[in-house]
């Protein structure tokens, strides 16, 4: 039976707290006054001497491992890639579908890029496939038993001459410049290759941008591309600032597949993370720091300035690697050596009006979150974050509609609303929270410009969403809460709904977890599987349990979470038969 607290309990607590002995000695204050640098910093206190030994030992082990791997490298052989087809790497580029807006209309919305497109998913895919990247090469590679020594030679020379790419990790092939053998060996990159993003991000001048079809003038930007008279791409920012005669329409085979912010967060939906390795990022440096991701095409590289000559062969190799290892990441846009094992959590992208309906008001100074009766308000402004209103509303669950958790785009830096601090509540609602992207451009520093607000899906919240999204969420919620699945219902939002593996009584506790979490489930048959912790972008952070036999019947594993930052993650059980995931809050 639950205890009922009285005023006497509160009184006793306050009295006891007041009577506690003082933990801070006055002598320390004297020391501090005489030597202000002696201020204790707990984060610093913990480090150094005990860790020096560990750091040195780790460095030695790493060095030794690198030496061993170097002496026996596992290379990708181009010849092994027998099923390479035309530009498949970009076939999954789902162009963000937006409503058509007339280019001649002035773009009043600040920093918003408007897209005019007549594409649907199939059309975008077709164009992506048609925009061939080195067709002659890929066709030849597609033939089994490909043995053309000339092509091998060409690869080798390109690898040597034009490729100044520094590989961050992994094994670069050994190259002996004086040896004749080099010319006859096929050039290939190791599957552990990670290319540094600084070499791939194109920073072009206005003139160079114009060559690939982008007109930039200060904060204004204009891009309009028509492909084979059928497909119409347009991205603009303050187009009125660019005179009519300077706006150009191009007819290139390459196009902007995605637009992201400087944190590589895509606008709109689509499988950006799975194709980002093979797309070419062009930094536009307009006010909102957008990056345009172009599809790779031979003609694109020929339009680039000389200093980017190495890119052509770099992307050839990247595409080969990606084809061979589609699940791996070969660039460090999102961090070093991460592997994507799940689709990213689907975050809702709403426009200003749609956000207003769910209680988010955005102006130039602040983003304001309001509960439905407007009695409780949280303001994130240029000069700080604060809440207004002492009404009970702020602690009623669910705050209606009001974000219960706020995180960054990878689910880190938690802010949890007080009313769900109760652990039982969090674990019950975690899997059905709906993430919504809020753009804080101009309000916070550039690297924190997007936050994700997690909403509890009340009827009011779902009704306030655009009709289609609301209806989809409702049908998925029925699946999640009832466990049954209609034949026509697809799963786009909740990972619990997307899970393809049948595990009964899949539980995580405690949730939020600090240092460890226990994972329990019932398994109907013995199967080999692994358990991993994955971030919001679907990237594997750590394997908690490597491939092992998951016994039939009850399984329980206690996992160590030390070193995982506070945030929202997915715990994923992966087997050959599929995967099952649940969300976990880590609160260190």
């Amino acid at each position, binding site marked *: 039976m*639950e*205890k*009922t*607290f*009285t*005023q006497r*309990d*509160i009184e006793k*607590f*306050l009295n*006891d*707290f*007041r009577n*506690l002995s*003082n*933990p*801070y000695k*006055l002598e320390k*204050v004297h020391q*501090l*006054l*005489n030597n*202000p640098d002696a*201020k*204790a*910093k*707990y984060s610093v206190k913990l480090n150094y001497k005990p860790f020096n030994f560990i750091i040195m030992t780790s460095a030695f082990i790493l060095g030794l491992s690198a030496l061993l791997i170097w002496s026996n490298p596992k290379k990708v052989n181009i010849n092994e890639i027998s099923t390479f087809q035309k530009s498949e790497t970009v076939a999954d580029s789902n162009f963000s579908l937006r409503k058509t807006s007339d280019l001649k209309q002035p773009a009043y919305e600040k920093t918003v890029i408007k897209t005019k497109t007549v594409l649907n998913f199939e059309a975008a895919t077709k164009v992506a496939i048609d925009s061939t990247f080195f067709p002659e090469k890929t066709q030849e590679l597609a033939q089994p038993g490909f043995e053309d020594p000339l092509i091998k030679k060409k690869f080798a020379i390109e690898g040597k001459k034009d490729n100044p790419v520094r590989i961050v990790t992994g094994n670069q092939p050994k190259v002996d410049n004086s040896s004749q053998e080099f010319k006859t060996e096929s050039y290939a990159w190791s599957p552990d290759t990670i290319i540094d993003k600084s070499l791939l991000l194109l920073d072009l001048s206005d003139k160079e941008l114009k060559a690939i079809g982008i007109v930039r003038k200060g904060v204004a930007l204009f891009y309009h591309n028509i492909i084979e008279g059928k497909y119409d791409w347009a991205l603009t920012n303050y187009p009125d600032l660019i005179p009519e005669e300077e706006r150009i329409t191009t007819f290139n085979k390459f196009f902007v597949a995605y637009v992201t912010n400087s944190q590589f967060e895509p606008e709109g939906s689509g499988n950006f993370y799975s194709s980002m390795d093979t797309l070419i990022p062009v930094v536009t440096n307009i006010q909102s720091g957008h990056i345009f991701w172009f599809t790779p095409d031979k003609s694109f590289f020929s339009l680039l300035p000389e200093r980017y000559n190495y890119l052509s062969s770099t992307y050839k190799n990247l595409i080969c690697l990606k084809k061979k290892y589609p699940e791996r990441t070969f660039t460090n846009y999102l961090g070093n050596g991460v592997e994507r094992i799940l689709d990213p959590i689907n975050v809702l992208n709403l426009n200003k009006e749609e956000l207003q309906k769910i209680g988010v008001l955005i102006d130039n100074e602040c983003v304001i979150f309001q509960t439905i009766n407007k009695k409780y308000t949280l303001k*994130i402004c240029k000069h*700080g*974050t*604060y*809440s207004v209103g*002492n009404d*009970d509303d*702020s*602690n009623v*669950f*669910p705050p209606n509609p009001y974000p219960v958790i*706020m995180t960054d785009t990878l689910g880190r*830096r*938690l*802010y*949890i609303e*007080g*009313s*769900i*601090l*109760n652990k*039982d*509540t969090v674990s*019950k*609602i975690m899997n059905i929270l709906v993430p919504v992207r809020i753009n804080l451009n101009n309000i916070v520093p550039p690297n924190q410009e997007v936050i994700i607000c997690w909403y*509890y899906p*009340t*009827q009011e919240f779902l009704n306030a969403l655009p009709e289609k999204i609301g209806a989809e969420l*409702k049908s998925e*919620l*029925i699946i999640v*809460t009832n466990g049954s699945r209609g034949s026509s219902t697809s799963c786009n939002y909740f990972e619990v709904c997307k899970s393809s593996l049948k595990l009964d009584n899949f539980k995580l506790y405690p949730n939020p977890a*600090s240092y460890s979490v226990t994972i329990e489930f019932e398994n109907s048959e013995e199967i080999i599987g692994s358990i991993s912790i994955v971030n919001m972008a679907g990237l594997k952070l750590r394997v908690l349990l490597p491939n092992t036999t998951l016994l039939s019947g009850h399984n329980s594993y206690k996992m160590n979470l030390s070193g995982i930052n506070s945030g929202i993650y997915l715990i994923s059980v992966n087997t050959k038969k599929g995967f099952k995931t649940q969300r976990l809050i880590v609160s260190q």
Partner: protein
Amino acid sequence: MDTQNKIEFITLYEPIHTQLSKFCRAISGNSEDGEDLLQDTILNSLEGFNKVKDKKVFKSYLYSIASNLHKMKLRRLKFRAEFNDTEINQIVDFGQNQEYLTDFKIVYEKMLSLPERMSETLILYHISDLSLEEIQKIQGGSLSGVKLRLKRGREKLLSLLNTKEQMKVALMLLTF
């Protein structure tokens, strides 16, 4: 800063050291952050000590700095003060029974989850032993405002402690 000023500072500071320490620890949620806050408060107040012309306001000057530093930290981290579970054993006498320790933890946790200003008022009055007038000077506003915050804070704390949140979740899920 010259020695004369330091002596003056420490003379004014010593009588309020205990009260300020309690405030810092209580509002930070754990003693490490509390000590960090206390030290930051001292260094900051020392820096601006010359500008304090009327030394009678020294106490509210110190508390205001502590309060602002704490708020700034919360804003910077976009975090609400989170209670550290292991901390409770360091704070409360081990002689107490386990049930009481659990209750203590719950009440403390809920007090920290109150709106910032409200929990601050409760801590200043009940834990740091400041008078209503002193709290008014630190927090601004009117005396009746302070009284109201104290009254409402206690009421709200009680209601938070007795809210059956799980029931509400179950009810919400049933509406789908």
